[in-house]
């Protein structure tokens, strides 16, 4: 029962993860590129030389050059995707803000979480089995549950109030 419930929760989470993974922004394109147009594209790219710096915020001269390149390409009427492909072509997939192989990117952690959860609950099931002879439970019976009494007292007080 418990296992089923928690497993269902896992499936639901997994499905959610996938659904959200599929949502991709759709962006329109204009003819006279402004700084904002350039930044919109640059935001989706990473600086090819600096570590972990998005192209739209990178302060180096090199990145300024790349942003101008984006501007030129936008003026030529290239789409965001074409510009991204161009950069990937020249500098490799690392300029993208997400690995190109989406399936692997999202599937591996999802499967890891799922497997971990299954293992965990298998484990818990074993531990949850009443042991009877367990040394700890023989010495001291289940510790008294303070919070229950606390809540019960609260309820009492509240009833009195009414």
């Amino acid at each position: 029962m418990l296992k089923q419930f928690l497993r269902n929760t896992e499936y639901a989470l997994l499905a959610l993860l996938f659904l959200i993974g599929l949502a991709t922004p759709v962006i329109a394109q204009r003819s006279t590129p402004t700084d904002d147009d350039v930044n919109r594209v640059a935001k989706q790219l990473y600086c090819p030389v600096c570590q972990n710096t998005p192209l739209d915020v990178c302060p180096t001269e090199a990145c300024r050059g790349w942003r101008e390149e984006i501007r030129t390409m936008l003026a030529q009427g290239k789409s965001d995707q074409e510009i991204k492909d161009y950069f990937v072509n020249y500098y490799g997939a690392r300029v993208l803000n997400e690995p190109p192989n989406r399936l692997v990117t999202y599937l591996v952690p999802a499967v890891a979480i799922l497997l971990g959860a299954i293992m965990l609950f298998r484990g818990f099931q074993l531990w949850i089995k009443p042991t009877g002879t367990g040394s700890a439970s023989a010495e001291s019976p289940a510790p008294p549950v303070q919070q229950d009494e606390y809540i019960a007292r609260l309820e009492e007080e509240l009833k009195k109030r009414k």
Partner: protein
Amino acid sequence: MIAQMGFGVLAVTFLVTLYSVFAAIYGEYSKSPALVESARRAMLLTWPLLTITAGILIYLLITNHFEVQFVYEVTSRSMPTYLKVTAWWGGQAGSLLFWSWLMSAFASIVTLRRWDRDREFLPWVIVVACVTMAFFIGMNLFFENPFAQIYQTFDGIKAYTFQPANSILYTAPDGRGLNPLLRHPGMIIHPPMLYLGFVSFVIPYAFAMAALITGRTDDRWIRITRRWTLWAWLFLSCGLVLGSRWAYDVLGWGGFWGWDPVEIAALMPWLTGTAFLHSVMIQEKRGLFKHWNLLLIILTYDLVIFGTFLTRSGVLSSVHAFAQSAIGPFFFTFIGVTLITSVALIIHRWGTLRSETEMTSLLSREALFLLNNLIFISVLIVCFWGVIYPLISELFTEQKVTVGPPFYERATGPLFAVLLFLMGIAPLSAWGNSTMKTLGRALWKPTLLAVFITVLIFFTYSRDPYALVGFFLIAFTILLTLYEYGRGILARMRGQNENFFTAFWNLTGRNRRRYGGYIVHLSIMLMAIGILGIELFQVETQGTIGIGDSLQLSGYTIKYKDVASWDNLPAGVNYTRAVVEVYDKDGRLLGNLHPRKDYYYDSQQPMTIPGQLASLKDEVYVLLIDWEPINQTGTTFKIFVNPLVNWMWLGSLLFLVGIVVAAWPDKDPELVPARVEKRLPQTSAAD
């Protein structure tokens, strides 16, 4: 000469820690309390020794000893003295030493406590603390020597620990100076806070290991380290918040969290630490999940080591960087060995770690806590995968990739949503058993109100579905938490005839862990408002304008008034400061902002300081991107409007209050034996 002395003292400290480890183990096996006591004293000696080492390093830093490589790399003549001191943790070698120094301080504090009832833990706590310390000191001694000096040989100029033959000491006229980004006050306090958090998590781990080794696997180790864990969590959280604030104020990209591997490295131990903090409560109250708690603290410890390593080295950027760095393989070996040893110990003690009771209800608090743990670990898996994926990809497909914010946001978003929900209902459920009926009775009123608030938001603020889900969960959890808090206050006002404030004060004081926890939950909700705001509603624009012109964004008009540029030669900085006016949509002047660009001559790096106009509704954040002194065509500004972002900082403050409430020391908890506490639950409930 002084540098060599520093190295010498460090070497002695290393030997002392090794002695302490061996004396503790041998003393324990040969049943010699004298030897264990000797190990304890050796451990106490490490703090003064490391303080001397650190003192020498600081002396070298503030007296411009540029023949020392570390000093050359992180300071320069133009830096003020306080910055030269904080440059101690501005580079890898120094921060490793800083780590060891903090570790020795904490280990000493722990050793000075009363050990009467926990004698058997002592040698093993010493062993774990000293092995950890020896590892970090070893890193300094063999790979990252902060005292290495620069020598000129026939082959060129290079740093050596010992003077090579036919060489002369080379002293550079000036140092390279600390990276300007690290000169910000946020960055001065942020690393120590983070490290304090990191290091204090070693203590619960040491006790956990001691419990496993000695076989005394009841919850004694948890009771001893409960408060340590809370303080560790406080420091770590503080470190994370300060780091975010620093990023927001100086990195100039309009946000505070960029899912950079370095940030994630600090977040990962926080995730397991938070899970641990919750799940130990299950063990204390119900005697469940003992294996799990041990596993969590082991994970936290190894993630702390991993995080320390990642934060400064940047080796995860590529396989090559990792292979080239001398310390990479050693860190990973250490992490591997400690992880395997610790898990092997859990397996060894598997039988004695059986749960004392059964889990009876799916809605009981322990079941919900379990779910909470699962979610935290899932977030951890996502983070860990994101951090190592570029390495794996490069290793197997020779393709370099970047894992940026889109992955993390999509993968962790739903998980965080579930966490918000759990945060709301878990405190209402009872230990042992809860039913839909008892839970439902408490839930329906706050839920109704939360729905009402969400509808209100739909009509007045935003129709974004993600935002509505987010705001509903936030409202739901805030209301439930307030409801739960309010019930307690009302009961006291009734029962003890107290007024609202006295009742609030006494209620919190009598059950600080519980109500401190609620305050923390509330503060997380406030932070969630800020995070939702900036994630979903941030807008930005960029434009090049002349003086007198203006840019428009989100109802605001930003008018460019003036710009000036000047040198501060003693400090070695060139400042360029613009003056802009911010008007609202009715044309009212809201204020003047001064976005700046500081250029540091010594390190040849610029720093962008935003002009910020903050309110609870949003924040106008103006950056001075570009300014050409010769060609006066105009100045480039980038403007962000960050809605609700200040709830994040407000929440952070409340967060600290909450943890301090929960972690504040009791009068003398050590005087009450744990077993008596267990038998007399009335003492706490009756208060």
